[in-house]
């Protein structure tokens, strides 16, 4: 579903993403790990077509992001880091706007999509509340609702559980797991237990390069009995 081929992105003198290649197929939940600044968000922005790569490309659901960015954007549900949204709109208005901008212009269709996304992310109690008055957890869920609104075959989620309390984290994880059977999912996180809990694969980035691409079990097997964060630290030490 997602084929990332030799992606390179440079900001000024810093090479943020350095020849990254990997692929994600349907049913995969790929956990993106790495220290801050390792290139996780940049890679996601390249896959979703928000940034243009210096070289290399990503093929998403058969469409090359450099040649057919709009097609790629149609297939992807994307939750950007810290879930930006328009603060002065209420939740429903915001989701209706996203549905319309995604081309669902028939009134009945739009409402049905918004109802479904609101139900899945448990936003019913704040549906008519303006987004700026919501707590971090709710805002994060608004971002998630916006990403799954059009039931995309591919989800790209940048720190989906950031700012949620432990219960909400669990809920979002089970939501992702529940959807993953028919989707390809990429999510980034700082929480290593989350990778264990939801991901079927780990890609560890360090200084813009892939250090590890394997299953959580294989990752654990690198140092049997050790905590995941100890393995993480030993693999990314060069970055510090």
């Amino acid at each position, binding site marked *: 579903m997602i084929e990332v081929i030799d992606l390179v992105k440079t900001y000024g003198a810093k090479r943020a993403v350095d020849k990254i290649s990997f692929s994600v197929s349907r049913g995969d939940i790929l956990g993106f790990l790495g220290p801050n600044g390792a290139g996780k968000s940049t890679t996601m922005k390249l896959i979703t*077509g*928000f940034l243009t790569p210096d070289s290399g490309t990503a093929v998403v659901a058969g469409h090359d992001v450099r040649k057919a960015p709009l097609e790629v954007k*149609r297939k992807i549900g994307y939750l950007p880091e810290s879930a930006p949204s328009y603060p002065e709109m209420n939740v429903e208005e915001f989701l209706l706007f996203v549905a319309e901008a995604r081309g669902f212009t028939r009134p009945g269709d739009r409402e049905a999509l918004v109802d479904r996304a609101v139900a899945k992310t448990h936003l019913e109690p704040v549906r008519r509340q303006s987004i700026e008055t919501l707590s971090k957890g709710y805002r994060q869920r608004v971002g998630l609702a916006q990403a799954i609104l059009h039931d995309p075959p591919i989800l790209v989620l940048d720190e989906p559980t950031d700012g949620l309390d432990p219960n909400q984290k669990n809920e979002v994880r089970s939501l992702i797991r529940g959807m993953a059977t028919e989707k390809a999912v990429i999510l980034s996180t700082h929480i290593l237990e989350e990778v264990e809990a939801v991901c079927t694969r780990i890609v560890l980035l360090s200084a813009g390069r892939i250090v590890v691409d394997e299953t959580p079990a294989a990752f654990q097997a690198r140092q049997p009995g050790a905590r995941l964060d100890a393995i993480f630290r030993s693999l990314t030490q060069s970055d510090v």
Partner: protein
Amino acid sequence: MSRVASIFKREFGGYFRTPVAYVFLVVFLMLSVGLAFFVGQFFDSNVASLESYFSFHPWLFIFFAAAVGMRLWAEEKKNGTIELLFTLPITPLDAVLGKFLAAWAFLSIAILLSFPMAITIGFLGSPDWGVVITSYFGSILMAGSFLAVSSLTSAFTRNQVISFVVSVCVNLVLVLMGWSIFNGAMGRVMPQWLVDTISNFSTMPHFEPFTKGMVDLKDVVFFLSLTTFCLFLNVVALER
């Protein structure tokens, strides 16, 4: 086209979701009408015409178009919503057009809300309605050009204040180049053909015919091409 419409609706509604729109409308009307009355001698001139109202418009739009346009892109960048916007399946051109048209519609409403002035002169005398209509038309056209400048400056920064200041400077130059007093001063140091050429690029001489009831194709083309040029650069700036 539906994508442009969805952007337009959100943006236009956005003006009225906060008190800013109402503050803007009140200040604009007070200032524009106040100038006509107290500086333009609206009543003392004893002529049933809105010339004293429209003659201040080039000066007013230097600031008011910058105020309406400054948020267009700077706010999206600051909130991070630009990432959301450009991972929706819309092109930069859709987004630029939708936003610009929304801001233009808002500014046009501000201009048209001076209609009680028109009713007043119709009540007190017998104005030339053709002139009134061409003046409104010219004013809205000119407002669009200033607004396009402001939308462009907004695309270069995440700070609305910077966008406002830069846009005011550019708009000011656009007016000054054709201001008769300024042209007179220039005429003393440079040949007349050069002064004429410079003043041809100003909004001032292209707006004046409208307030006299003349709609000249070259003036319409001037404003439309200035607007199109700025919006084109706006798209390019966002595609970087």
